[in-house]
């Protein structure tokens, strides 16, 4: 059984800078940390490895400074590390990213399961898991809490707003993992010692057979038109007094501002 674990490096919040021209994040200069949502995906991979003896391959698209994060995943449970890295990947939106991931995942066939975090802490779109699934032509499920392999099928338990759903799927499946698992394990000391002498395999656009126009900014239909800091221009007012008087004052104000018809 093969599980492909996709992780992402996100800029450490206080170190991030935004490119003033493209409005994309300057990842090369930022200190990268593991996307916090991906820890649940790593934990799920570790649990499935324990439960079924699965092989876990961790992949990440990003600049070479994501290597420590691949090693972190190796420290927990991964058996192989693959870095998807190429200058032409820079500036990719979720679609271009999904193209790269889909090609890389296909290269690792056969596989039963692909695990991802629910979303990334920098983009917050949660689009990559379903987009990658669409490009691969396989099903995807979001917010998955637990996964079982039963008689050639995958049974996934999914957290929804009001209920837990149990869904049966034929593998392979892309699952994004519920971010609030009750426990997330630390890496193993033995594996951390082992990974000191290991480097990830590197795949470029050429290795994946992708054209430049499908990648980076040119392959990304999403345009960020602007990025600005949230500013609180005015402080809220606090009115005190008789409730009836205050209600009258409020109605006058709402009429003035055009929220109520005069």
């Amino acid at each position: 059984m093969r599980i492909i674990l996709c992780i992402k490096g996100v800029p450490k919040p206080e170190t991030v800078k935004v490119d003033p021209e493209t409005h994309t994040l300057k990842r090369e200069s930022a200190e990268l940390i593991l996307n916090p949502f991906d820890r649940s995906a790593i934990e799920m991979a570790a649990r499935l490895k324990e439960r079924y003896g699965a092989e876990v391959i961790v992949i990440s698209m990003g600049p070479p400074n994501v290597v420590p994060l691949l090693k972190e995943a190796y420290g927990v449970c991964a058996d192989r590390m693959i870095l998807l890295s190429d200058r032409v990947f820079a500036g990719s939106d979720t679609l271009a990213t999904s193209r790269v991931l889909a090609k890389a995942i296909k290269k690792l066939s056969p596989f039963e399961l692909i695990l991802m975090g629910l979303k990334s802490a920098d983009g917050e779109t949660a689009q990559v898991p379903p987009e990658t699934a669409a490009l691969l032509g396989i099903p995807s499920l979001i917010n998955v809490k637990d996964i079982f392999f039963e008689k050639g099928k995958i049974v996934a338990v999914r957290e929804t707003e009001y209920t837990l759903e149990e869904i049966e799927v034929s593998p392979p499946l892309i699952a994004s993992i519920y971010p609030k698992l009750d426990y997330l394990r630390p890496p193993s000391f033995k594996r951390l010692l082992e990974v000191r002498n290991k480097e990830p395999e590197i795949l470029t656009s050429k290795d994946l057979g992708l054209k430049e126009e499908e990648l980076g900014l040119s392959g990304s239909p999403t345009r960020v038109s602007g990025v600005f800091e949230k500013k609180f221009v005015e402080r809220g007012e606090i009115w005190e007094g008789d409730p009836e008087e205050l209600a009258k004052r409020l109605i006058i104000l709402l009429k003035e501002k055009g929220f109520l018809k005069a």
Partner: protein
Amino acid sequence: MLVKYFLTEEQSLLVELVKRIGEEYIAPYALNWDEKEAFDMKPIQALAHADLFGIIVPKEYGGLGMGVFEMCLAVEWLSYYCAGVSTTYAASFLGAYPIILFGSKEQKEKYLPDIASGKKLCAFALTEPQAGSDAFAIKTTAKKEGDYYILNGVKQWITNGGIADIYVVVALTDPAKGPRGASAFIVENGDPGFSVGKKEKKLGLKSSVTTDLIFNDCKIPAERLISREGTGFMVALRTLDYARCGAGAQALGVAQAAFDVSLKHAKRRIQFGQPVYNFQAVNHTFAEMAMRLEAARALVYQVAKFIDSSLKEFSGASAMAKCFATDQAMWICERAIQMMGGYGYMRDYPVQKFFRDVKCLQIYEGTNEIQKNVIARELSKLYK
């Protein structure tokens, strides 16, 4: 720290991992565990996943095959975050050492892999109501009947009682022979006639579990005997020689935590228009605390390395490390409260917890008075 100890790359990685576990699985909860007197399995689970229960277990049984020094580093930095958690952790080694040092090949194969992986916790049971410092006064008996031993008696104040799966128990196989009639046995949770008594209420170390163990015609297979009949106290005392250094290491961690919290406070606390650290009465106290802490650390580290050098005679050295480091830590924690004044005394701040936790270190694994007996005895051998 003003003194550097030149750890190897592996040892630094170990300390880094322990600190990471401390920050994530212990620090946010330690005061609450203390307040509620609650044992939490999560940090234990994290230590198990990090392979850290295997630190002293030989590699051929799935452990890391490291020494007393590395065990001390792990215990020190766990204690920095919570001495209760580190007590659960270190007490498990106290139960594992007899099997590592004196267990048969079959016993090692049966127990050590599960101990190394953290699947099974251990406990060590010597103390009885009438036999504390006077360990030779134990009354628990083990009578051989065919292929079994039948244990009867009560063990008192046993760390990890009820949460451990494997208990190393010292009992008299031949009461007529006195101390030479004692033997060590492995008792498993679930053995017939074995039960756990009430959970003790303690001054500190509240996130660790301490109970009585009750043996009421407890029947165990004869192959659970460790080494030979009559070697019980040899096994117990040798185990304590190894493990004592760990109590010294706990003291270092708690003292370092008390030092850090109180010094940061003194740098920020403004009185008479300036940080109280500026006053000589305060900053000289910190200078004294730092000297004592580093002297204790240097001794504990050196003794741990000495034990690992596989020289035979180290009882006196390990007693020194335990006694000196825990006495210094008690003094440092008391001063840390004084340096914080009212803040040190309030239960919203952690220093009062360090003070209560550290007190036990002068008592358990042989009181500091008994450590001085050991040191005096060893000195007397040298100066015949």
